């Protein structure tokens, strides 16, 4: 798997068989804590289940699609993102203080956490490996245009890039630009154009033509 360090290209030790040293160390810690009565195994399973299956970018996609189709909702996101996102029931840990930033023709927003891995769990779930990686965290603030290019996102040179370094408990959600050629689409149709990466700001939302390409693959 990609590695949170300088040599992640060749590191696959997380998949090694038989169990790697770290897997054994984790197993040992888990047994110790269960035997000491400090954790309930059912609690561990419930937490994993929630963040692996029930909270993820599917939540954020609903927020974005509604913002694209409902001007009042879009304004509500700007005025009180917590309440507007909470309207879907998306609330909780790592999403207590939400801010929505809108991409437009003159400004593009990008989210990072240089110090750690802060990310809006309530709308995007747990962050991808690259978001937590040293290369992304180091470069997003100093070379945002280069970082975007690495994701295949090339902006007009006079588009301002606003990088949001999540240094506090505020959590940032990017509202990407609504793609052209989607006039009259319903929110449900538009959700298919919203990607996780577009809500972090490293990519734009998909174009309608991309859906046809996806279907062909």
């Amino acid at each position: 798997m990609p590695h949170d360090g300088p040599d992640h290209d060749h590191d696959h030790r997380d998949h090694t068989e038989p169990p790697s040293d770290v897997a054994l160390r984790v197993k040992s810690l888990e047994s110790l804590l269960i035997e000491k009565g400090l954790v309930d195994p059912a609690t561990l399973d419930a937490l994993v289940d929630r963040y692996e299956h029930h909270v993820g970018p599917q939540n954020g996609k609903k927020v974005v699609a509604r913002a694209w189709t409902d001007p009042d909702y879009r304004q509500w996101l700007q005025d009180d993102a917590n309440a507007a996102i909470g309207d879907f029931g998306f609330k909780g840990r790592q999403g207590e203080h939400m801010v929505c930033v809108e991409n437009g023709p003159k400004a593009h927003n990008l989210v990072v956490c240089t110090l750690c891995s802060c990310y809006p769990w309530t709308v995007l779930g747990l962050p991808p490996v690259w978001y937590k990686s040293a290369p992304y965290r180091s470069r997003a603030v100093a070379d945002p245009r280069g970082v975007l290019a690495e994701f295949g996102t090339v902006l007009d040179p006079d588009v301002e890039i606003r990088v949001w370094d999540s240094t506090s408990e505020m959590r940032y959600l990017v509202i990407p630009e609504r793609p052209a050629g989607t006039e009259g689409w319903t929110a449900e149709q538009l959700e298919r154009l919203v990607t996780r990466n577009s809500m972090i700001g490293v990519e734009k939302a998909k174009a309608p033509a991309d859906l046809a390409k996806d279907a062909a693959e």
Partner: protein
Amino acid sequence: MNGAHDLGGMQGLGPINPEPETAEPVFHADWERKVFSLTLATALLGRWNIDMGRYSRERQHPVTYLSNTYYENWLAGTETLLKESGLVTAEELAAGKPLTPPTAPDTIRVPGPEQALNAVKAGGPADLDVPVEPRFAVGDAVRVRNFHPQGHTRAPRYTRGRVGVVQRLHGVHIYPDTHTPEVTEGHPLYSVRFEGDELWGPDGDARSAVYADLWEPYLEPA
């Protein structure tokens, strides 16, 4: 602290190489699921907070921090906090089994699945409803102080000594630098915008800006 976690502006760390979005699983190995859930579940015991959790990972040796995968850093931090809080001993961690009698059930409340899910669904807001008069207003130019604390801080090194403009006041938030189970200090939290060339000089992108959330004690008038 000026640890390896404070990565903004560091160079030479290589390409990002993102996994394709549609192909990336939430967890890449079963032990990652365990580290994630053990870290959350033990945090719910209330012996430490999110700021202490972050500091436990940040104060590893820089070589270790940068060599570890993400969840290895979580594992190391959780082990450190369990030891420092006295919930387990180093000998028990090494042995993988209890060497002292289990903690009496009346001294610690271990959340069951429903309680734990309720806790993460409720979250832990960091804002405080206390009457503090903010020193700065939107539009004020501020300079991040030149300071280098040994403990946990949220003032990234790349902002220190740099001048930005206050964009927004987020209210009074818990001050991470001093936060313990016994101490909760609140200070105004500001969104401050720094121009790319102010942060990075001629090597920066003048058509970019960085917004950081900074607490009032980090800032001085510019």
